[in-house]
């Protein structure tokens, strides 16, 4: 049995290494993607263009504008006296935000102790609009506080101080809110996902298309030996790609795992067991590489968008979360973030490890049963 497996593996590796195009794609493509993708998936928005409608031209309005532009997030692209002019800049996409400072802004602020500002946001780009609006609001709140402090210290205020609650937050596990630390491990998972499921499926379907699987089936090779012989090469490839990914993440983004590498690799093998099982299952349901391609594309798209790589799973409705919890990448992304950012050990990630193993077991058994039926 071991001998047969050895010869099968020798054959598989020989075939994979001989296919130069595939080797190049499997090694170079993930490296390039891992270098490029984190640049695009950065949620810290900068260079928001803002048009200010200043109807006051006072020290207070100048001070507010100065505070906004010096924050680093905003770029002043328009300074007009008319609201309509600013709005047309938003329409022409010359500005993302329009801020209107009403006439007598300073005077009313001093006299009536309150004043209203008006913000118009271009919401076509949701993220930018949200974050831009939030940034601007927090700057204005800050500005408001400063003014209050000024008045208090100048002693002009009467009556007792209004109690104030100040909130100080500190970001645990990622103190500088380095977005790369969060996204690089997740992107690495999506790359391993694509390789593992797709390549196993294609490889087996190729044997179907070429008829070589028939020739194998009339030999005494046992089915599980044949399947093991198919899975091990892609397990090895998966580990190589993962390792390359860790190196790229370290060199280009300075992401270094806080937790143990052994925990990461153990989880990787568990994860690949599940994903190779999926590839195997897809192969049993497809007769041609085209079918295998469409099927795996469907799954990989869903996995990449829903497994929490880019958006939080917690914000999905309950039933969607239930579905997502059956996705192996969801668990592996969780594990990756816990180990890389928090330094979690085996006991912390045990629930996710167990879930992946259970899913893997189901997929593999399903695949083998279906393989028997069809072949």
């Amino acid at each position, binding site marked *: 049995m071991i001998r047969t497996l050895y010869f099968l593996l020798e054959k598989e590796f020989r075939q994979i290494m001989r296919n130069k195009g595939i080797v190049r794609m499997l090694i170079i493509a993930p490296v390039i993607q891992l270098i490029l993708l984190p640049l695009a998936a950065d949620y810290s928005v900068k260079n928001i263009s803002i048009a200010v409608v200043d109807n006051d031209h006072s020290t207070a309005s100048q001070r507010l504008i100065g505070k906004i532009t010096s924050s680093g997030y905003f770029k002043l692209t328009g300074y007009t006296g008319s609201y309509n002019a600013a709005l047309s800049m938003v329409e022409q996409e010359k500005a993302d935000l329009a801020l209107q400072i009403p006439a007598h802004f300073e005077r009313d602020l001093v006299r009536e102790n309150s004043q209203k500002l008006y913000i118009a946001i271009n919401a076509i780009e949701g993220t930018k609009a949200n974050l831009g609006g939030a940034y601007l609001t927090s700057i204005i709140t800050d500005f408001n506080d400063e003014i209050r402090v000024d008045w208090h210290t100048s002693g002009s205020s009467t009556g007792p101080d209004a109690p104030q609650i100040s909130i100080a937050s500190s970001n645990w596990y990622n103190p500088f809110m380095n977005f790369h630390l969060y996204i690089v491990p997740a992107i690495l998972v999506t790359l391993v996902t694509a390789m593992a499921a797709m390549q196993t499926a294609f490889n087996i379907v190729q044997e179907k298309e070429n008829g070589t699987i028939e*020739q194998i089936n009339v030999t005494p090779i046992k089915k599980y030996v044949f399947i093991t012989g198919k899975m091990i090469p892609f397990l090895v490839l998966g580990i190589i790609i993962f390792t390359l990914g860790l190196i790229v993440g370290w060199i280009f983004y300075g992401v270094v795992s806080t937790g143990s590498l052994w925990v990461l690799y153990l989880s990787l093998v568990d994860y690949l067991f599940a994903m190779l099982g999926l590839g195997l299952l897809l192969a049993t349901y497809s007769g041609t590489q085209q079918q295998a391609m469409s099927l795996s594309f469907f799954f990989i798209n869903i996995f990449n968008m829903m497994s929490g790589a880019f958006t939080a799973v917690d914000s999905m409705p309950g039933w969607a979360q239930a579905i997502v919890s059956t996705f192996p990448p969801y668990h592996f992304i969780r594990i990756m973030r816990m180990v890389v950012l928090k330094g979690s050990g085996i006991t912390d990630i045990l629930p996710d490890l167990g879930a992946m193993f259970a899913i893997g077991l189901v997929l593999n058994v399903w695949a083998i049963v279906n393989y028997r039926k069809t072949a």
Partner: protein
Amino acid sequence: MITVTNIKKTYNKGQVTALKDISFSADKGELFGLIGPDGAGKTTLFRILTTLLLPDQGEANVNNYDIQKDYQQIRNCVGYMPGRFSLYQDLTVEENLNFFATVFGTTIKENYDLIKDIYQQIEPFKDRRAGKLSGGMKQKLALSCALIHKPSVLFLDEPTTGVDVVSRKEFWAMLKKLKQEGITILVSTPYMDEANLCDRIALIQKGEILSIDKPAGIVKAFPGDLYAVRASSTHRLLQNVRNYPNTATCFAFGDALHVTFKTPGSEPTALLDHLHKKDHPDVAIEKISPTIEDCFIHLLKN
């Protein structure tokens, strides 16, 4: 040896019948031919006997092993060469042979004698990828791979389709040698001329066996006399012979028409006169002995 009893197989949930009630047997060391056109069910039968497919009904034994219960034993002792070239195209000639030797737990060296005559012809190209071989060489490699574990039964599904005439001749010469080694061979072919090279043949059509006999026996069973009719304008001749009242069958075979008459023992002179009248001055008729193809067409007609 092979015994097949009442094998039935349908596809698409019974909508398409591939084999209906097939029975035959081949003895040890026999070269048994399955002769029939495309779609007759030959490949289905091969796939059932090589344990790749389960029949709907019936039983079959290969080397006294049941194809359903003892499929593991059968896989150890049969060689199968599918109709389509199905070795690894991206492995070289030698790597393919080596791979199939090792999965059967043997080596090229151990059984080299058996494949020597065949393999020697492709050995100069042993470092070439199998996908880059010519049609004839591919067949030789496939046969070598099917033989490398010294099987006692060999299944060859249309081994000579798409192979040049010289290679076909060589191939059949090799089969003869293998037969002498005591290997039972089941071979299928759409070429009628190859049928004569088998010990026994089964004529198969639309999933049914029409006749099983030695090639000579099948020819002998041809009823009545067969005549070859030749003339310069073949197409017009065909129409005229077919319209002749006493013609039972008339088929074009190359440049000649093969004709049988309705009343047994009729002389061809009447037809000759008829054709002279129909403006075929150069017409010639001769009595010929029927070929397997004639017999096959005759059986199909009935």
